[in-house]
């Protein structure tokens, strides 16, 4: 199955773009399947089903969404293969912006929209920096110059990616995205593949449901920050 990871900040249009591109692929006789990793809740499953794309939605709930994603990747891949898909997509809600779901050897797509602040490309970090394709949505709502400046900022963060503007509502550009997706690497198994960016280190007392504030409740992998000029400065 050709494997594609899709990441991007909330509400940037990932699902619209992916669903439309999948529609194009399916029309050309290449069945798709999407696994959506989300944190708390999502209606994206309905959106994919409405577009005729098989989907499975998984919620991380109280867990770190990135760890939840990594620990469920083999099963997600297996589900895609079992559903008969030739192209399998894994869409994440941008995880927590600290991480990137992109995998070495699989096609990595980042979706970002033109309405976010000018510093957004920098803020969302690894999921943009590690992507092969950057899809920019909502370009119809801004000026030509803004699109170009925004593109420039994206380019500063990722020197290598192909950057394309796509309209998730009208589907303009989705056929071209589908053409790229159809060329994603064909993969037998995700086992032993590697993430392009490491996960956050954790396992502290708060991971185990501690809610109280204070040094004496903090155990495990704890990192203390330095605050300039404060009484706690080292």
């Amino acid at each position, binding site marked *: 199955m050709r494997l594609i990871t899709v990441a991007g900040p909330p509400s940037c249009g990932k699902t619209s773009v992916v669903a439309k591109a999948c529609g194009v692929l399916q029309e050309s006789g290449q069945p798709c399947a999407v696994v959506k990793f989300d944190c708390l809740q999502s209606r994206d499953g309905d959106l994919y089903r409405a577009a005729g794309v098989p989907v499975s939605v998984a919620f991380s709930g109280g867990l770190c969404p990135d760890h939840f994603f990594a620990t469920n990747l083999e099963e997600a891949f297996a589900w895609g293969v079992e559903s008969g898909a030739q192209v399998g997509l894994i869409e994440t809600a941008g995880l927590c912006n600290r991480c990137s779901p992109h995998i070495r050897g699989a096609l990595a797509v980042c979706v970002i929209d033109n309405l976010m602040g000018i510093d957004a490309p920098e803020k969302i970090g690894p999921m943009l920096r590690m992507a092969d394709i950057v899809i920019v949505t909502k370009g119809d709502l801004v000026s030509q*110059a*803004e699109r170009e400046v925004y593109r420039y900022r994206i*380019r500063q963060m990722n020197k290598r*990616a192909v950057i394309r503007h796509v309209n998730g509502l009208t589907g303009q550009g989705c056929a071209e995205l589908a053409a790229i997706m159809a060329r994603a690497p064909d993969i037998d198994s995700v086992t032993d593949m590697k993430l392009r960016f490491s996960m956050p280190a954790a396992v502290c007392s708060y991971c185990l449901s501690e809610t109280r504030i204070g040094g004496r409740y903090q155990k495990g992998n704890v990192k203390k920050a330095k605050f300039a000029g404060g009484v706690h400065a080292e």
Partner: protein
Amino acid sequence: MLSEDAGSDVQDAQHENRVYAPASMTLTAGRDKSGRPEAADVVFRSGEITALLGPTGSGKSRFLSDIESLACGDTPTGRTLLLDGRAPDADERFGLQGRLVAQLTQNMNFVLDMNARDFVLAHAMSREVTDPEAAARRVLDAANALAGEPFGPGAQLTQLSGGQSRALMIADTALLSWSPVLLIDEIENAGVDKRRALDLLLASDKIIVIATHDPVLALSADRRLVFEHGAVRSVQTRTGSEEAILARLEHMETEMSRVRAMLRAGKALG
């Protein structure tokens, strides 16, 4: 394959500021809404203005969209876009998508959280111009010459009025945009001096296509495409008697502007 080390991607990234600018562009004859063939191909050349005329729903937007999407017989009209007489192959087509054509549409506002100078400077830098500071000053000056009420370099983009935003967009597109083809939708509604706007855009030597309902703009274009039922019905150029009509309309517009300016300034009309 778009793998991590694909050479074509690196080239794509490095060359994105150098967009191929065709000397001519052709939209081949397609079909109207009933499937009847269009009469002839339409050829565009740089530095030339084409006005699109016709009632709403007559096919002007579809025509613009065929250009923007580099149609290759895959749109409802069946038209194909040729650059310098040749249909771009799939890779070229994809590479040019979103870059061949710049669009100035109505009802657009800035959304970025930057001031005017920083924004234009960033745009100039993204275009790799030799002196971004000077280029930014030229754009701001040009924008202020178009806008009714001038704005300073420190003005936030989001605080600009509709007219000021459009003036900045037009100046920026004319002086900094890399796209060789410019599509303009009803510039007469921009709240700027449309003649100066057009002169500024024309100086940039692009292929310019304007959808308009304004008689002065329509008559001042090099030619007019008249749409009906989804297809180009006729191609017209200005006749001798139309020259006289254009001159009269321009005179009327000048008079309108003069009276408007006096009323705005609270002066007596005598």
